[in-house]
């Protein structure tokens, strides 16, 4: 099996049953660009956005969050989500939520995600589920990494301003929605 197919197969199937140490070892054979490309392809294949797709994207995020090398994955997935227009964005934000559960965030990526949410809020016809999913990911990227943000006061100030805006949106979500649970509860 060629290396690209082997990587794709690992992301599609094997990673869910692989311990972190083995996953680290497996990914060490590949350069970052190939991994990001294969991961993006894998996540975009979850385009039906069923509950299972969202759950698997979230689990995949956690798997990548647990790796010793996180490959600046959040930077790439935030960029990818900004380029996508369809419902698959929910899948990408579910991935980021799982990722930020475990990994330190790149604070620049969290701010970029915040900027993208502001654009979503000002756009017509964007599903509320996509907006709430993005807010959930932003909240986890910020709240789980407060120390990193505090070391950068200007960025922290910006993040707090964004959080205040998103809290208003989250307050309109159903009370069992993760965005509501994280920011309003």
């Amino acid at each position, binding site marked *: 099996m060629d290396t690209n197919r082997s990587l794709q197969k690992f992301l*599609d199937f094997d990673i869910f049953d692989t*311990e972190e*140490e083995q996953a680290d070892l497996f990914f060490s054979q590949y350069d970052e660009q190939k991994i990001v490309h294969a991961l993006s392809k894998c996540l975009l294949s979850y385009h039906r956005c069923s*509950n299972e797709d969202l759950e698997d994207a979230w*689990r995949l995020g956690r798997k990548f969050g647990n790796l010793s090398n996180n490959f600046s994955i959040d930077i790439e997935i935030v960029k990818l989500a900004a380029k996508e227009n369809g419902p698959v964005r929910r899948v990408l934000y579910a991935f980021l939520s799982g990722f930020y*559960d475990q990994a330190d965030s790149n604070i620049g990526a969290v701010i970029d995600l915040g900027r993208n949410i502001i654009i979503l809020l000002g756009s017509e016809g964007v599903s509320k589920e996509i907006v709430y999913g993005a807010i959930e990911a932003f909240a*986890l990227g910020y709240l789980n990494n407060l120390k990193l943000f505090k070391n950068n006061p200007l960025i922290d100030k910006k993040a707090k301003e964004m959080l205040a805006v998103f809290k208003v949106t989250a307050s309109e979500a159903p009370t069992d929605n*993760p965005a509501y649970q*994280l920011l309003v509860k």
Partner: protein
Amino acid sequence: MVEGIQHFTTGWKAKKLVKGKKYIWAIDESGNLRIGEEISVGVGRRQRLGHPTLVPDDGLARVGGEIKLPDKSNQWRINDESGRFSTSRSKEERANILTNVQTLFKEAGLDVGVRF
């Protein structure tokens, strides 16, 4: 598919976990611990039916996760990797929940570690 579901209320003891098998856990709406062996149902990304099958009435639970025996270890460890039941919590809240769940496992006779 989940087999051999064990539902614990106060005083009940769990069966010993068997090396090589996969287990999942959930805390149901009443706060009781449920454990089951997870059996593959096919080939592919969705090989398992997972946590909703562990709890009654189409799967309402407070939190859930996996029970794993790490390589080179004799102690099983729990995590909160259930996409359906473990989202929307901060790291601190998750750590508190997992520590409380660890206590429920101990009460059921299983001395598990926690993987945060």
